[in-house]
């Protein structure tokens, strides 16, 4: 902050930029202008040279200093950001407001009000800077005071309470057994000749990716199930059911050219 104030002084006092010392100062200024946090920051820095209470600061003087700063910066061919120039224009306007008698037809804020607001903004910014410094100077966790170095785990024991009653268990079993009772007698006896839908689904899912084009449903009947009539029928029925299931899931397309014609299926195009 001190260095910058110094450079600021050099600039606003208007020393000859042609001297070697001024050139060095100008070089430093280029860096320092980058270091400013916008036009309000420059104004705050400038206002410090007045060494008065920010509330009693002369905005007129400040405006003049700022305009001089912008002029000098331009003379030194320092690229100034647009907001610095906007501030310069606004301050020039404020200056004219403060110098000229108030226009009775203008119902906007008076020059004094605008000046008071600017002074307030500067004071507030300065106050926030002080507050920030005070905040950072406080005792800080991990620097001045410390939390427990080896926290013990306060564990949450999750007890999963399974919500099943003995009735549900019994009913589930009963459901299974009564389903058994409805099962056709023949199938119970010929279980090894029954191709289940699960088996059919497995087989179809495995094969469908490889047969690129339409293929006959009957071509999916596994080897060993074609000779025996009962087995073939069981496999065909299961595959048919599986085909319907896969079509429902949107995995395959089905096609049949006419009544009792062979049923063809193919993998559905993957969405792009």
């Amino acid at each position: 902050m001190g260095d910058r104030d110094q450079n600021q002084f050099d600039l606003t006092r208007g020393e000859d930029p042609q001297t070697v010392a001024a050139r060095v100062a100008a070089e430093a200024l280029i860096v320092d202008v980058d270091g400013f946090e916008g036009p309000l920051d420059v104004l705050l820095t400038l206002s410090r040279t007045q060494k008065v209470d920010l509330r009693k600061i002369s905005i007129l003087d400040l405006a003049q200093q700022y305009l001089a700063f912008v002029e000098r910066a331009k003379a030194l061919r320092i690229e100034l950001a647009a907001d610095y120039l906007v501030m310069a224009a606004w301050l020039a306007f404020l200056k004219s407001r403060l110098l000229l008698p108030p226009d009775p037809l203008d119902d906007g804020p008076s020059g004094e009000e605008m000046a008071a607001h600017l002074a307030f903004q500067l004071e507030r910014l300065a106050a926030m800077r002080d507050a920030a410094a005070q905040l950072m100077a406080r005792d800080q966790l991990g620097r001045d005071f410390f939390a427990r170095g080896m926290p013990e785990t306060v564990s949450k024991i999750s007890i999963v309470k399974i919500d099943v009653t003995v009735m549900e268990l019994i009913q589930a079993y009963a459901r299974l057994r009564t389903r058994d009772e409805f099962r056709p007698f023949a199938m119970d006896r010929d279980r090894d000749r029954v191709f289940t839908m699960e088996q059919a689904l497995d087989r179809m899912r495995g094969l469908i990716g490889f047969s690129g084009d339409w293929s006959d449903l009957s071509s999916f009947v596994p080897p060993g199930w074609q000779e025996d009539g009962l087995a073939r029928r069981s496999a065909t029925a299961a595959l048919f059911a599986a085909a319907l299931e896969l079509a429902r899931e949107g995995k395959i397309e089905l096609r049949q050219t006419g009544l009792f014609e062979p049923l063809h299926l193919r993998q559905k195009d993957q969405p792009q």
Partner: protein
Amino acid sequence: MTQHLDDPVLFSAPPMAEQERMIEALLFATSDPMTVKELQDRLPHGCDAAQALVHLKKRCEGRGVNLCRIGEGWAMRTAPDLGYLMQIEQETPRKLSRAAIETLAIIAYHHPVTRAQIEEIRGVSVSKGTLDLLIDMGWVRLGRRKMTPGRPVTFGVTDEFLAHFGLENARDLPGIKELRAAGLLDSTPPSLDGLDDPDGLDDTQAQLFDD
């Protein structure tokens, strides 16, 4: 330790109460137990860490936090009798899937039963996850391998399962006939001769549970 006291010290050591306070803060903030030497090195010149530890230990007696010796070091630890406060028991009710209930029911009624038998009864394959879940819950356990080709493992229910359902014995589970008699089976199956044979099941149960 006493040599420090004999040292011609430029700055006199802090009073013992202050040293105790320092030890307390150090042991609180450190992430590992600290030895007397480590404590001594951290304290200002002329302090007596060992003595301060004695004082601190005494002060902590009967408190919620005690000074404990851990190996070569010292650490602050919550009093062991309050350990239960560090645990919160949360009950999360969980519904079992239909597959899990059915599998569990089959195991309960047919105990011990192989996976193939469970699949036979359910008519669909049993995922390993379902069995794992039931075993994890402590309701199903692995039983002896069956003396049939392949020597498949069998599954049975645990005492925990019985306790949960308030059963003395898996045989206490009602059979199909009783269920129907009690009106617990709403569907009346067509009476197919030879099928309506609840004895088969009961026999198996009788045999299998008397081990």
